Every structure is written in structure tokens, then in C-alpha cells.
């Protein structure tokens, strides 16, 4: 059975040692930052590509974000996805209800124009705003089963077997198709683009779906950094001579016994 899979991904900045906030306190200052696909979703794309490599079928990647998010769609093309839809925003962050409503509409439109998705994948939560709900809302609107936090997906008789990590192992879910799953980093190791993939990404056609939705009830006031604990670092040395001092500390902390 060939699989038709959709993956919803988010473009996020990739801060280094610190996250800086813009002067208006409305967003992360990304002036000197690169952007990436939110890590859980990068793994969701890889999971979708692996499933279609094994069972046949195609992967559609959707993103809601600024025009620049086309970069993340092209990256998905370079690692094996087939179809791409950008739902453009004005660059401001949309609240979870608004985002979910627009994505639901985009998925519904895409299914009406093509064929229904057997599986829609999300990341467990977006790396930046971390709302933990867009996939759940979309699944509910579509009337489909949804389990979040998934670290393993296999095709089963009438749907999918999904595994979710818990303290002492895994919980197993048997969800019928069509299904929605939220994926966590660690489900796989995403591949790097090949030369052929890079060429495919240049040629990939990105559809634009102008969709808006009503704002929800969560409003952002401002972003700020948590108070940092003042810290002073005791430098124990700059050579193997320092190991005596290191082991003294381990002894003091009682971790040598």
C-alpha cells in the first residue's frame, strides 16, 4: 500500500550561546542568526521519507510562516520530500488556534485537490514557541486519531503502530488510518542532502496557499530572558597538572565513593 503523507514543519532561528530579543520585545533577534527546521519536524520529514521509501508513496511538506520559510521546504526537497506548500504569514507569530485552523484548511484543500493523506505528521512541539497543541487541534478538526511524543512508526494492518517513550521503555499505540502523529527527535537520524537532493531542491515547485484564520485567545505581550544566576568560574588549570584539583573536587562532592 503506497502511502500519502503530509508533514507540517516550522522555520525557527538557530541561536547559539544566547537568545536575544528584539527591542520591541516581540520576537527573537535573528539579525545574525541562521534558520533551521524545528528539530522534531526535521525528524518527522525523515520519518515520512523513510516510510515512503519502504512502502511507496509521496510526502507533502507544509509550512506556515514568512516567505523565507520556502528555504525549509526546499531543504525538505533535498532530503526526499515530493510536494511543498507555503501558507504565508506577514512574519508575525500566529497563535496556536489560528495556526491550527489555517493548517487544517490547507490539508483539507490539498486532499480535495489530490488524494487523502494516510498520515499527517507534526513535531511534538515547535522549538521556539512550544505550544504543544497545533497537531492535536488539526487532528480533532479533521476527526482523526492523534498521539504525540512518537519515537517509532511502523505500518500495521489498518493503520500504524506508534511507540512513545516513557521512563522505563515504550507505550504502544495502534492507530487506524488516516492518522495524525506528533514526532520527537530521536525517532531517526535525519539524513544530510545528497548532490542529487540539492538539485531536486532547486527544481522543486513550491505552492503558495493564501489562508487566514481568526486569532485565538492567547495573546503575546512580550518576550524576555529568564534572570541569569551570576556565576563565577574557578579555572583549575590549563594542563594535565589540573587533574589533582579536579579529583579533589570530586572527592569533596562525594562522587568518588
Amino acid at each position, binding site marked *: 500500500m503506497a502511502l500519502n503523507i503530509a508533514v507540517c514543519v516550522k522555520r525557527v532561528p538557530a*541561536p*547559539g*550561546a544566547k*537568545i536575544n530579543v528584539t527591542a520591541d520585545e516581540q520576537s527573537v533577534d535573528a539579525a545574525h542568526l541562521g534558520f533551521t527546521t524545528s528539530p522534531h519536524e526535521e525528524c518527522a520529514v525523515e520519518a515520512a521519507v523513510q516510510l515512503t521509501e519502504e512502502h511507496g508513496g509521496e510526502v507533502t511538506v507544509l509550512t506556515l510562516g514568512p516567505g523565507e520559510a520556502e528555504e525549509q521546504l526546499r531543504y525538505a526537497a533535498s532530503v526526499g520530500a515530493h510536494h511543498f506548500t507555503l501558507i504565508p504569514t506577514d512574519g508575525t507569530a500566529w497563535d*496556536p488556534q489560528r495556526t491550527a485552523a489555517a493548517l487544517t484548511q490547507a490539508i483539507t484543500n490539498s486532499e480535495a485537490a489530490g488524494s487523502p493523506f494516510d498520515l499527517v505528521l507534526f513535531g511534538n*512541539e515547535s522549538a*521556539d*514557541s*512550544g*505550544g*504543544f*497543541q497545533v497537531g*492535536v*487541534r488539526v*487532528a*480533532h478538526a479533521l476527526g482523526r*486519531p492523534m*498521539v*504525540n*511524543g512518537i519515537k517509532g512508526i511502523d505500518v500495521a494492518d489498518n493503520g500504524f503502530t506508534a*511507540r*512513545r517513550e516513557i521512563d*522505563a*521503555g515504550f*507505550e*504502544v*499505540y*495502534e*492507530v487506524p488510518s488516516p492518522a495524525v502523529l506528533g514526532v*520527537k*527527535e*530521536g525517532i531517526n*537520524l535525519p539524513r544530510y542532502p545528497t548532490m542529487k537532493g540539492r538539485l531536486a531542491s532547486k527544481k522543486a515547485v513550491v505552492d503558495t496557499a493564501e489562508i487566514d484564520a481568526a486569532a*485565538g*485567545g*492567547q*495573546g*503575546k*505581550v*512580550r*518576550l*524576555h530572558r529568564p534572570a541569569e544566576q551570576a*556565576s563565577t*568560574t*574557578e*579555572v583549575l*588549570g*590549563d*594542563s*594535565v597538572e589540573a*587533574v*589533582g584539583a*579536579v*579529583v579533589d*573536587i*570530586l572527592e569533596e*562532592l*562525594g*562522587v*568518588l565513593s
Partner: protein
Amino acid sequence: MTLLAVLDHDRGKLAEASLETLTSARALAAQMGTDLHAVLLGADAEALAGQAEAGGAAVVHVAQHEVLVDYGPEAWGAAVAELAGSVGALAVTATGTDRGNEVLAQVAARMDLPFVANCTEINTGANDGGAWSLTRTQWGGSLLEDATLDAPVKIVSYGHHAIEAAPADEPGAGEVRTFTPALDGSLARTVVTDRVVLSQGVTLATAPVVVSGGRGVGSEEGFAILDELAAELGGVVGCSRAVTNNGWRPHKDQVGQTGTRIAPEIYIATGISGAIQHWVGAMASKKILAINTDPEANMVSKADYAVIGDLHEIVPAITEEIRRRRG
């Protein structure tokens, strides 16, 4: 007029996070000037009503239905949404674990209301049905967002470990009310069907010592010296995302925002620059020792102790010195 707190359990054993839920919910109910009701789902949860009562619940609702044999996000969400309506809840809360956030998202989707995840502070204002002001985490805790929540029923989770669980000054009335939600049998589709238990040694999350390596380790084989030091200290090996991305270590060893949050007595971070997404997973460590060639590395400036040097020399020398002292 109630605040409804959703408690989590694994086949009749209360989740550790639910003690946090009761603690934060008591404070929230007091701020709202309402009663605290708790909800437990599934037949085997009924025995936990006493713990909810001890935690301050005036009423403990126990949902019983043939679909609720085990955890299922849709069934739990539907049952809680129904109860929120029938008791006229002004707010619904839980702790922002995987399950807590998932269930509240299901509740919110079903009630078509907003849901604010991972709050650190909530100000309910005038309690006249108007908007709440709250602070929540973004970037796994590296950034805070002040937000407003405007909804007839407020659905909020507190971040896991955002507050410390504390016993109630006095128990609640603890009146137990069992109810049978009108669940569609089809919601069994997302109920846990099986569990796979993996062997449990010391895990990254609970280890007293974590010896971690980053890109500076240079290769999969390079981790042998970290394995040795960790074994000598009865600890485990961790790593950065640069390492998992290179396939040098499995993702279960990754410390950070999209990996594991650790809280050891000492975290030994070698060849790790200390990017914010790594730091947020390591910052609960009691002490941090950074070993890095770069004295300016963020990990070095945030650590309690540092050795500036090549980890390939320093790490084996530490192991050797421990062995020497042990004789």
C-alpha cells in the same frame, strides 16, 4: 465555580508530577477564590482519591468507562472536556508533562478554547471572567513569554518542575463522585495497547554523575575515554546534539532542549561549547566542570569549574588520578 485539576497515573500509581499539579492548583484555586476539584480517569484510579483529598481537593471526580482501561489522549481529553462543562469549571489545569500537555490540548480542541502550555506564573486578575496575565516558557525554558489568556474557561498547564511539590496545609473535603462520560467507543483507537519495558540501569535523567562529550571529542571512538571516566565515577555518558547528528552516540544520550534534562551532582562537559539549547538541559546540575580548549566558550563561563585544555589529555589523566588515589 471550580478549578479542575487533571491528575495523571499509570495503571493506578499516581504520577510524581501530579503532586506538583495539586500544589500549583491549590495556589491557583486560592487566587481564583474557587474550590479545587481533581479528576482521575479509569477504574484503577479510584484508589488514588485519598491522595487527591490529601492534596487539597474538595471534590474528586472519578471517570469510569469501558474505553478508559488505560491512558488514551483522546478519551481522557473528551472525558475532561465533558466534566469541565458539567461542573461549570472556570479553569482546567495540569502539569506540562508529555501527557499533561497532550490531554489539555485535547480538552482545548474539543471545547474550541485556547490552551496555554508551560506557565511559570499566573495572575488571574480581578476574577471577573476577564483575561488572565501569565508567563510561560518558550525554547524549552531559554526564553519567557508574558501572555494574556482570554477565554470563558481557562485551560493552562504549569511547566514540569516549574514549581516544587509541597504537601497541603490541610486536606480537602475529598468527596468522591464517580461519573460515566459519554465517550464514543471509537476513541479506544488511541488508548495504549501494550508496553515494552526496557532494562533500567542508571539513566541520564537520574545519574549522580554525567560525563558528556561534544563535537570536540571528534569521533565515535573518541568517547572511549569518557566511557571509562563515567564507569569509574558510577555515572553515565551524555553528549551534545552535534554528536548525535554525527551518529557518534544515540539520541538517548543527548542532553538539552530536544534531548534529556539532567540534574546530577556534577556534570562534566567536555568539548561542548554550551549553546543555549544544550545549557537549558544541563543547568539544573548542582555543579558543572567544563573541559574545553577555548577559555571563552559559553560552557566555560557558565561552569563552576573549568580546565582549559585538550579533553583527549585531561579526561584520561583524571581517570588515572582517581585510580591512583584508590590504589
